[in-house]
């Protein structure tokens, strides 16, 4: 670092940029404000939540003990994780073919699909939740079609685990599709042609070439959907049953109705730790810097 006058061009690119990075005060100026904002508005409040969870109303770990001993809370946590897994799997199964078509075609079909996905993405999730209330309701098109086909009285769709899972899948599906699309778009079509020229049938070419190359998208999309789903709140309340209670509903109830801030903080800390663990595992196997393609 001391040889400031040594011919920079002689150094390999990586070393050169690293040296420039540590030397330039501009880097610190650029890093300063975001670090400050993150510390003040993110790290500090989270630290406060952590402190509240062991000090409110008095210094103890009783809240954590309660979370893991009262069946209700273990049930809610388990349900949150199972629901998130199911929603993630559904998004993957539904989203993969759509993203595949979007990435492989470059004509109007791709544009049309992208427009539809983006519009769905931009529509408020409350609006989409209320739309399901209408669609699945007892006067909605599903019930109407059921009766028109003479299948007798329609089963109850609304206010079931089915409805809440469907609603959450619908809301999170665009995230999955866009994450998959970003990776799939970068897969060279020539690689599939090369596979074909070596005798691979389309199915084999997909399984041996396209699928492995698209895996980063699968991991990214799944992580994005899973973590977002952990914090879901309004949709399960409006479409589901009390049996489908998610962790964030529990936190809200404790804060707003029962004023149990200490307990709510402990639940939030557990949620945070769980999310953090998932990110750590992800980082081990995929690398966090690849999250955005």
């Amino acid at each position, binding site marked *: 670092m001391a040889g400031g006058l040594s011919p920079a061009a002689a150094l390999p690119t990586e070393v050169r940029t690293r040296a420039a990075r540590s030397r330039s005060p501009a880097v610190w100026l650029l890093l300063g404000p975001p670090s400050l904002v993150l510390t003040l508005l993110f790290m500090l409040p989270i630290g406060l939540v952590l402190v509240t969870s062991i000090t409110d109303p008095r210094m103890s770990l009783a809240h954590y003990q309660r979370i893991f001993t*009262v*069946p*209700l809370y273990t*049930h*809610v946590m388990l349900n949150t994780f199972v629901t998130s897994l199911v929603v993630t799997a559904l998004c993957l199964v539904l989203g993969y073919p759509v993203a595949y078509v979007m990435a492989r075609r470059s004509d109007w079909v791709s544009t049309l699909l992208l427009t539809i996905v983006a519009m769905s993405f931009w529509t408020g999730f409350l609006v989409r939740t209320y739309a399901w*209330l209408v669609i699945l*309701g*007892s*006067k909605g098109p599903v019930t109407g079609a059921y009766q028109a086909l003479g299948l007798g009285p329609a089963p*109850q769709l*609304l*206010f079931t685990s089915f409805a809440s899972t469907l609603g959450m899948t619908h809301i999170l599906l665009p995230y999955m599709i866009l994450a998959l699309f970003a990776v799939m778009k970068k897969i060279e079509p020539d690689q599939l042609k090369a596979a074909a020229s070596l005798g691979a049938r389309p199915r084999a070419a997909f399984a041996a070439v396209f699928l492995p190359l698209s895996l980063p998208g699968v991991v990214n999309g799944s992580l994005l959907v899973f973590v977002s789903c952990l914090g879901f709140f309004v949709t399960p*309340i*409006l479409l589901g*049953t*009390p*049996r489908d*209670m998610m962790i964030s509903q*529990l936190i809200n*109830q404790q*804060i*707003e*109705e*029962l*004023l*149990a*801030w200490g307990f709510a903080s402990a639940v939030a800390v557990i949620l945070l730790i769980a999310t953090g663990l998932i990110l750590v595992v992800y980082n081990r196997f995929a690398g966090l810097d690849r999250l955005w393609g």
Partner: protein
Amino acid sequence: MRRRAFLNGFAATVTAAAAGPLIVTDRTIAQTRTMFVNTWGGSWTAAEEAAFFKPFTEATGIRVRTVAPVSYAKLKAQVQSGSYEWDVTAITQADLLRADREGLVEPIDWSIVKKDKLFPNAVYANGLAYCALGTNLAYRKDKFPQGGPKTWADFWDVKKFPGNRSMLNNAVRTAQFALVADGVSPDKVFPIDVDRAFKKLDQIKPHIKVWWTQGNQSQQLLRDGEVDMMVMWNARASELQQQGLPVELVWHGATITTTMWGIAKGAPNRKLAWEFLQFAVQPKPQADFANRLYYGPTNPEAFKFVSPEIARQLPTYVENAKVAIKPDTVWEAEHTARIQERFTQWLAA
């Protein structure tokens, strides 16, 4: 020139930045005379606007701004952090009592509030009684041509009154209704026999299609015909009637709870706020509010300004109040957390 212009601009920015905090604290000085009210939004705030805020501003020049929805958590956060978004809040009586016990409520300033201008029982837990809210059994008349349910026992009777049902996701209210359905007289519900209530609730649980949490959600359920009978707030049901829906309200065994006005401890505009509360609990403004939104005036004098047609639909109307449950606020404040946990667990099982 350009350099000077830049410097001037820069100076102006710095001055504005430095004066920023002053401008913010300025609102605490009576000079600008604006106070902030935490309220429920929607038709509730619209009725407040017409009955309280506009006349108050006309009479005093003090402006009123609103923040929605009501949040107990925010009351606590404001007092703990010393940074206030609002001064006054509408709040349920049990919550106000809990807040007052936690030291979150500003004590009444008797130099501004005149005792002789208040009605009996206006003061509770350092707040003033705002209005009374009914939580009733409501049903679709068109679904029961032979006559609908008249009591909670009828609501529990799924053979005689078949149909989809919905209840409020609130432990204490639900337990009260269960006890009345089990034969307890509405005036003997408190203290609640929790075990007995849950035993009775076990019977109705499979027949409850949805446990609602939000007022507009409850209206949507009855309007769209998702359910035929349900627990509902009285003014929400009256709104559906006004929209032409065949909805009937039952007063027997309904719960009448009091909503209170309270001021956040240490709120910057508390002096203006007390002036406002003194104004808001007078007969005329209370009647104006009840004429728009059918929650009952707490000031008995207010009924002079309410038409008999509307008065009959209010929770504090004598005939209605007589057959309703009047909750024991102290008991509620002490037991809600424990019952709510059991209730949530019961719902999730």
